[in-house]
C-alpha cells in the first residue's frame, strides 16, 4: 500500500512542471546555471525552466530534443553532472576535482550511458582548448536515445576551475539540426567567462 502511494507521489512529482521558459536576449551578458559562468549570445535563445541537473541550465531554439545547449556551472566534487536517475540501482559517476581534462569526456559518456540506459554513446575527437578563460578540453560525441531512436551528435567544452567543473555542451539530431545549430552554439560558448561575484 505504502509503496503504491509512494509510487503515485513520485510519479506525480516527476511529471514536468509547467515550465517558465524565458527569453535570452541577444547581446546581453547572461549568468547561467546559477553560477558566475557568463555568456553573451549574439542571437536570441530560449532558457528552459526545466533543468537537467542542480547546477545545469538548458538553452534551446526549437526544444531540447532538437537543439540543446546546456551549461554546467561549477559542479563540485562528489556530484553527478546530471540529475540522478536512481541513486540506488543506477548511480551516476561523480565529478572529482582530481580529474584530468582527458577524464571529462569519459565522465559525460558514462553519465549518458547510465541515465539514458543505452550503450550507444561514443566519444569522437578530444583536444585541448580554452574554456571560460581556463585550460580545458573540447570533445565531440554521439549517442542514440532508445526513447526516440534518434541519433544525436554533440560537442562539448569543459574545464576544471577552482576545483569545480564548468562545461557547455551542444547536442542535436544528426539529421539537419546539429549542422543547423552548431555554429550558433560555438559563438555563444566562445564568449564564456567567469565573472567574479559582486560585479
Amino acid at each position, binding site marked *: 500500500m505504502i509503496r503504491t502511494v509512494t509510487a503515485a507521489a513520485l*510519479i*506525480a512529482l*516527476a511529471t514536468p512542471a*509547467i515550465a517558465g521558459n524565458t527569453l535570452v536576449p541577444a547581446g546581453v551578458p547572461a549568468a547561467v546555471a546559477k553560477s558566475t559562468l557568463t555568456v553573451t549570445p549574439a542571437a*536570441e535563445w*530560449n532558457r528552459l525552466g526545466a533543468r537537467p541537473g542542480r547546477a545545469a541550465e538548458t538553452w534551446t*531554439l526549437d526544444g*531540447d*530534443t532538437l537543439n540543446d545547449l546546456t551549461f554546467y556551472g561549477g559542479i563540485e566534487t562528489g556530484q553527478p553532472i546530471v540529475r540522478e536517475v536512481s541513486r540506488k540501482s543506477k548511480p551516476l559517476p561523480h565529478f572529482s576535482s582530481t580529474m584530468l581534462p582527458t577524464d571529462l569526456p569519459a565522465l559525460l559518456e558514462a553519465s549518458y550511458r547510465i541515465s539514458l540506459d543505452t550503450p550507444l554513446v561514443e566519444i569522437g575527437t578530444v583536444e585541448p582548448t580554452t574554456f571560460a578563460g581556463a585550460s580545458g578540453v573540447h570533445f565531440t560525441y554521439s549517442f542514440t536515445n532508445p526513447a526516440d531512436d534518434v541519433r544525436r551528435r554533440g560537442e562539448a567544452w569543459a574545464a576544471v576551475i577552482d576545483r569545480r567543473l564548468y562545461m557547455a555542451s551542444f547536442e542535436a539530431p544528426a*539529421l539537419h539540426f546539429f549542422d543547423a545549430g552548431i555554429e550558433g552554439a560555438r559563438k555563444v560558448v566562445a564568449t564564456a567567462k567567469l565573472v567574479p561575484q559582486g560585479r
Partner: protein
Amino acid sequence: MACPDGDPAGIGGMFMTRRLKRPVAAALWVCALGFAAPAMAQEKSATREGFTLPASAKARILLFRPRVRVGSQSTGGMFEPNADWTEQSKRNLVTALGAAQNKLGHTIVTADEPVGPAAATLAAYRALFATVADAVITYQFFPGNRLPTKKRKGAAFAWTLGPGVRDVPGAADADYILFLDTEDQFGSTGRKVAQLFAAGLGVGITSGVHSGFAGLVDARTGDLLWLNADRQMGGDVREAAGAAKRMAQLLEDFPGSVPAVKVAAAGAAK
C-alpha cells in the same frame, strides 16, 4: 542532455522509510494543490502560415506505412514493447489507412517498404519526424509552455525536418511526404492501481499513452506544413474498429481532404 521529463526510471527504488512518511505526505498535498488547478488547454493541429494544398489534386503525396509501436506501460511509466500487439496493430492500421486514403483528395503514392541503406534513411526520418512532432506538442501546442522565440507573429508555426528529406526513398518524385506515427502504451495493472491511489489524493497521473502524429512535409525543403498530433488519441489499435477510429483521427483536418459527407454522397451516387 535533454531535460528529464515523464517518469524517471528510478521509480523502481520506491521504498519509504518511516522517517520519510511525513515529507512524502507533505509532498502529496503540495502535488494535490498543484494539480487542482485547471489543466492547460492544448491545441492538436496546426498548419504552416500561408500554406494551402493545391486544390487541383495534382499534388503528389508520398505515403509510407505508419510507424507503429505498441506495448504496455509499467508502474513506473516505462514502455515495454509487445511484438504481437505491434504486428496486429500494424495490420489493422494499414487496412484502415487503405480505406481512409481516398478521402485525402490528392494523388497518393503509396511507397513500398525499402530495404538496405534506404530503409535506414527512412527509419531515421520517421524517428526525426516523431521527435519534431513531440517537440511541437510540448513547445507549441501547449500555449503556456511555448518557447518565447516562437510566440511572435510570423514565427508561430515554423518547424522543419531539413532539406535532407529529399534523401527519403521516393521523395524525389513527390511534392509532399505524409508521415504517420502511433505509439500505444497500455497501462499495466500496477500503473492503473497507482493512478487510482493518486486520483484519491487529488494527484493526476496518466495510465497509458496513446499518441498519434500525422504530418505533411514539403518533400523539397523538409518544412512541416501541417501537423495533427496528440498524446492521448482514441481507438484501441489492436482492434480493427479501433484502428479505423485512430486513422480517422490522425487524418482529421488534413488540408484538402474530401469531407466524409461528400465521399459518402459520391459513393451512394455510384
